[in-house]
């Protein structure tokens, strides 16, 4: 940034070159090469093979199930994220830090454990498994289990994106609206929501990307019934294990496109947030929320 940084207060030219070189090699090996490989393998046998792989019945069934799970899990978690961030950012109450820790929980639990708890709860040996079986209901190894697990895994994304943004904004604008006679809902929709718009969009995109891409947790509860309980990532696994490499990468490339779109949206949102002069302390990195949440409000913008 500063000119002085790059002159007498920087490293010697050779050292700089080595550090940049190491960065480029590391990023090249771990990030660029995998991306190139996915698309190379996906399109190796031509466009016709690519489209055949993503349009065969099992692939379409997997795409439909993934869309369904995301279409249910994401809206629920968006509503929760809005309500929880309103609660945590606008009010002080005892047990707030416990609540934020609980919201973070799905990030710290292994995906395998996330799936397992639903098997323990709803599986045949589980708490309510027998009762469910008697009544002819199936949750685990069926679609409801996949949706529940997806909800659990994607639960924190919207909330933790919104909490820091709402906190930096404080409550002055809402208070002004209330004093001027607006009701609670009107204040929320006309004052709060426009202020958090970009953070909300980013939270939804992240939540959706994870909902569509989750593998470990969904794998545990799915039962892997082809055409019935396979999501896109599980379908990729099956194709790969059956040595249909190009088909596996063709389907995988769909998820890779989604990942790249997510990265682009992230950049746009960051840019928009900076434009609005909101010091977004939030990040996509699942960092634990600061324990002393109120401290953030005292920092000048």
């Amino acid at each position, binding site marked *: 940034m500063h000119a002085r940084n790059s002159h007498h*207060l920087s490293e010697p030219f050779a050292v700089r070159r080595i550090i940049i070189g190491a960065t480029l090699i590391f990023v090249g090996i771990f990030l660029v090469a995998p991306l190139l490989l996915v698309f190379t393998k996906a399109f190796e046998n031509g466009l016709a093979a690519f489209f055949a792989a993503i349009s065969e019945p099992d692939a379409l069934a997997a795409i439909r199930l993934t869309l369904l799970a995301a279409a249910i899990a994401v809206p629920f978690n968006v509503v929760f994220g809005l309500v929880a961030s309103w609660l945590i950012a606008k009010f002080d109450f005892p047990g707030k830090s416990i609540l934020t820790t609980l919201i973070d929980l799905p990030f710290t639990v292994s995906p395998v*454990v996330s799936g397992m708890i639903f098997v*323990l709860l709803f599986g045949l040996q589980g708490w309510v498994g027998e009762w469910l079986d008697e009544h002819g209901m199936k949750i685990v190894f069926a679609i409801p289990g996949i949706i529940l697990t997806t909800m659990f895994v994607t639960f924190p994304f919207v909330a933790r994106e919104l909490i820091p943004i709402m906190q930096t904004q404080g409550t002055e604008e809402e208070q002004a609206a209330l004093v001027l006679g607006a009701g609670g809902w009107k204040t929320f929709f006309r004052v709060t929501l426009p202020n958090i718009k970009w953070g909300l969009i980013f939270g939804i995109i992240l939540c959706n990307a994870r909902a569509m891409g989750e593998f470990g947790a969904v794998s545990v509860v799915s039962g892997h019934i082809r055409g019935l309980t396979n999501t896109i990532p599980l379908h990729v696994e099956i194709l790969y294990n059956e040595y249909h490499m190009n088909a596996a990468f063709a389907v995988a490339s769909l998820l890779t496109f989604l990942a790249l779109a997510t990265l682009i949206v992230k950049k746009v949102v960051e840019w928009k947030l900076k434009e609005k002069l909101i010091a977004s302390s939030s990040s996509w990195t699942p960092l634990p929320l600061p324990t002393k949440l109120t401290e953030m409000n005292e920092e000048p913008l």
Partner: protein
Amino acid sequence: MQADTSNKRISNRKKGRRVLPGFGLSLGFTMLYVNLIVLIPISTLFFKSFSMTWDKFAGAITDPRVLASFRLSFGASLAAAFINLIFGLLVAWSLVRYHFPGKRIIDALVDLPFALPTAVAGITLTALCADNGWFGRYLQGLGIKAAFTPVGVVIALTFIGLPFVVRTVQPVLEDFDPDVEEAAASLGANRLYILARVILPAIRPAALTGFALAFARALGEYGSVVFISGNIPMHTEISPLLIVTKLEQYDYAGATAIAMTMLVVSFALLLTINLLQARMNRSV
């Protein structure tokens, strides 16, 4: 009447920020949702493990195959977190301090491991490291076998944890006041001394947080590892995979014991990270 409202206002002010509407509603909804989706499901794990006798629990986690999986999971996660600590610092440093072509693209790409589904990462890294793969053929020439060995596990876990150190250190470096460096330089400190005594202490808490996060994430990782590891019992079988295997054999108690042990470790790590974060916030 008049006195009543003013009293209410005073009590509102006393409650501090609780002047906005919707406290009860949002508290109720949040608690209900957190309970239904997170707390009740997670509690099954605790009840299941408390229903086991201590002997049975200890027996389950000291089984040789389980111990081997712990060794691999902890060892490989630690190795991957160290690689990420070193390269993460270098990447963050380059991105903040230097200018080079492609910098913005690299900055955006750093988040790829968060965005890319783990299954896709798994098959891709396996294809790269396989004997005939883009990297595998050269590694083989060097006498290193990456796919289906612990080396492969470390590679997958390095990929998964890559963004953590970069993203924790980057903002701290950006906020670092160059005047401090200038002051040190004007007092006669050389570059290496400034790095070690001025810059490193400032970024140490962030770097440690990133390291701990990468480690915690690697411990639980499943999707990206199961493809590249080959899943050979006692050799390349990670703990999360062993949980899945036990679940498939309906050995719910055995799976619970492993899961519980890993959960306790994750919580300990989370606590450490929170303490580090608190210290970081205080110093900022």
